[in-house]
């Protein structure tokens, strides 16, 4: 077994930062009761100004004149944590959640994504794209990976014998030991894990209880670690909230790109797709605006999802400024990637056809892109349809048909046309009230066009134009 640990040192802060466009403005998360507000996390520029975690808000305000403040929200943080677990699920079937970290079993994934340096850079690339700061380590046990990720970013230990020597220099204070034990150990003069692991277990158990010993055994792999394996949920729901109000649709594009990107990462983890989702724009004192987004087929490409949602959103007139945005995808159908031919003659950088269709639909309307097929109905008006629910005619049409068809027949104006072929009588439709009796002819108009026209049976006048042999 090999476990990779992705440690997320700034999970809550990154969750807030990624919903606003990149800026250098100092930002802090604050928590605690109203009288005793403290800094929960500080962005890089805020830390550069001397702010730190645990500082009282009054002291922070004394040090830095202006900074943005956001309330720390534990449920928000838990949501991001789950999202990242769902992302990690893409790389491994066994994913666990630890405080501020996600661990994944990778020994079986290395065959597909490996070797480890490549796998690691894949993970880092994804996380950077999602906008989360991270530290990654690899070890034979999840606990050891967790400890090593905190100690050395990028450390990789693959065999149990080297694990002990890798863990030895780690300070006890950073070894994620049960509460209280770390402090007591360092006051006893035991400062590193190496010293602690060398001590007799029986004595440790008597002094510190079974918890510490069990933790040490799990660390070095002498006891299996009991961890609940993460299962992604069957629906996607993500919400972003801002402290300020957004009045223009254009300003929603950045958070929208994030939301659809997260949805795409989530779908990749589940190996699923989405065909229908909903963007909910919440207002301060009005019912939310709901924007449904539907696609022709299940998809999960981030650019495609964003394109579709953007096209729909751009046509929305906001009745009020938006304070929060939510993306709901209750139904996640299986995703079948379109097969592409190895010897495909299309350009390498061509936009996939599905994406092109979605882009056209999002601007021109839901029914703008159609494909036609023939039906079994002999009446010219109903002989073809764009509805995919009507069965296709299994046999080829042998009768003469024009290339253009008028949606509804029009009277043919001008002098009497010259008859080229015909008549073909169509007398049918008694079963649904659309009864028709017509003689169809191919005629030539005075302007030299070949027309498909009909007249009442037996007569050659009162011509109705129904198509062109263009």
């Amino acid at each position, binding site marked *: 077994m090999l476990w990779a640990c992705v440690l997320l040192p700034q999970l809550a802060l990154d969750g807030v930062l990624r919903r606003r466009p990149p800026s250098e403005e100092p930002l802090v998360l604050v928590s605690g009761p109203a009288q005793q507000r403290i800094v929960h996390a500080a962005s890089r520029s805020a830390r550069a100004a001397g702010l730190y975690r645990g500082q009282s808000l009054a002291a922070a305000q004394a040090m830095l004149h202006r900074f943005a403040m956001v309330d720390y929200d534990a449920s928000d943080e838990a949501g991001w944590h789950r999202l990242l677990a769902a992302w990690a699920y893409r790389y491994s079937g066994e994913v666990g959640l630890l405080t501020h970290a996600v661990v994944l079993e990778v020994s079986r994934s290395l065959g597909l994504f490996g070797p480890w340096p490549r796998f690691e850079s894949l993970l880092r690339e994804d996380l950077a794209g999602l906008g989360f700061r991270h530290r990654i380590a690899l070890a034979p046990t999840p606990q050891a990976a967790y400890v090593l990720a905190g100690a050395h970013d990028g450390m990789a230990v693959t065999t149990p014998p080297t694990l002990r020597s890798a863990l030895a220099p780690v300070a006890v204070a950073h070894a994620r030991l049960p509460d209280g034990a770390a402090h007591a150990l360092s006051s006893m003069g035991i400062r590193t894990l190496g010293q602690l692991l060398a001590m007799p277990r029986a004595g440790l158990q008597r002094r510190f209880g079974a918890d510490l010993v069990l933790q040490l055994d799990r660390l070095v792999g002498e006891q299996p670690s009991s961890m609940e394996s993460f299962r992604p949920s069957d629906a996607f729901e993500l919400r972003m909230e801002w402290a300020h109000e957004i009045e223009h649709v254009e300003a929603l594009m950045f958070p929208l790109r994030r939301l659809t990107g997260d949805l795409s990462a989530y779908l990749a983890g589940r190996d699923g797709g989405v065909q229908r989702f909903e963007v909910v724009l919440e207002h301060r004192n009005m019912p939310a605006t709901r924007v449904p987004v539907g696609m022709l087929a299940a998809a999960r490409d981030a650019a495609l999802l964003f394109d579709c949602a953007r096209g729909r959103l751009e046509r929305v007139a906001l009745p009020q400024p938006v304070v929060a945005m939510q993306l709901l995808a209750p139904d996640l159908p299986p995703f079948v990637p379109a097969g592409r031919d190895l010897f495909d003659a299309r*350009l390498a950088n061509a936009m996939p056809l599905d994406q092109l269709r979605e882009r056209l639909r999002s601007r021109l309307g839901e029914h703008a892109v159609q494909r036609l097929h023939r039906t079994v109905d002999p009446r010219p008006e109903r*002989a073809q349809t764009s509805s995919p629910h009507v069965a296709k005619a299994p046999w*080829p049409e042998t009768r003469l048909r024009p290339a253009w068809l008028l949606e509804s027949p029009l009277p043919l104006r001008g002098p009497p046309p010259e008859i080229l072929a015909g008549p073909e009588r169509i007398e049918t439709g008694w079963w649904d009230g659309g009864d028709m009796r017509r003689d169809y002819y*191919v005629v030539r108009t005075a302007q030299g*066009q070949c027309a498909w026209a009909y007249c009442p049976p037996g007569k050659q006048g009162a011509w109705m134009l129904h198509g062109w*042999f263009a």
Partner: protein
Amino acid sequence: MGQLVALNTLIDTRQVWQGRAAPLPGSNESTGWPALDVALPTGGWPEHAMTEILLPVDGVGELQLVLPTLARMTQAARQVMVISPPYLPCVAGWEARGVVMSHVDIVQAAARDVLWAAEQCLRSGSCAAVLAWPQQADDRALRRLQVAADTGKALAFVFRDVRHAVQASPASLRLELESQPAPRVRIRKCRGGNPPAQAVPLAAGWS
């Protein structure tokens, strides 16, 4: 004789004018009309470029002209987009000419969106041919289509009224259809050669 220079190196570097234009590379996109292929300097549709087809009225053989090409493309599973056609394409009529309708998408666009849709399709690189019926198109809009066709390596067919014939056009090939006395196509402009004086006869649409 101070210095001998091989003649073919001079010719290859195009330093010697030989009095006749270098032959154009032949087109891989045959029109499906042998007489028209012969009349065109590239022996087919200009590749990755725009062809403008001018019509006196609808229904004078404009589809006859392109359907053999569309049939060849769709049979090879290459996508064709039909943008804002003036009438419904009749499936039976198109299939009779060999077109596979599952590779033909019909895009219904409002008049002001036709050029936008055509440009998106051409630029995407996933369509083999794009047919468009723009209501109003100026020189700049057509030039954009020409560039998009080159970017996406696609054939663009733009159908316009014959009254636009007097305006200059950036199209690589301009064809004018005539219906009287018999269906004919006249080459108004073709890149890489002088337009032939003779019109090329087309078969009537219904036969």
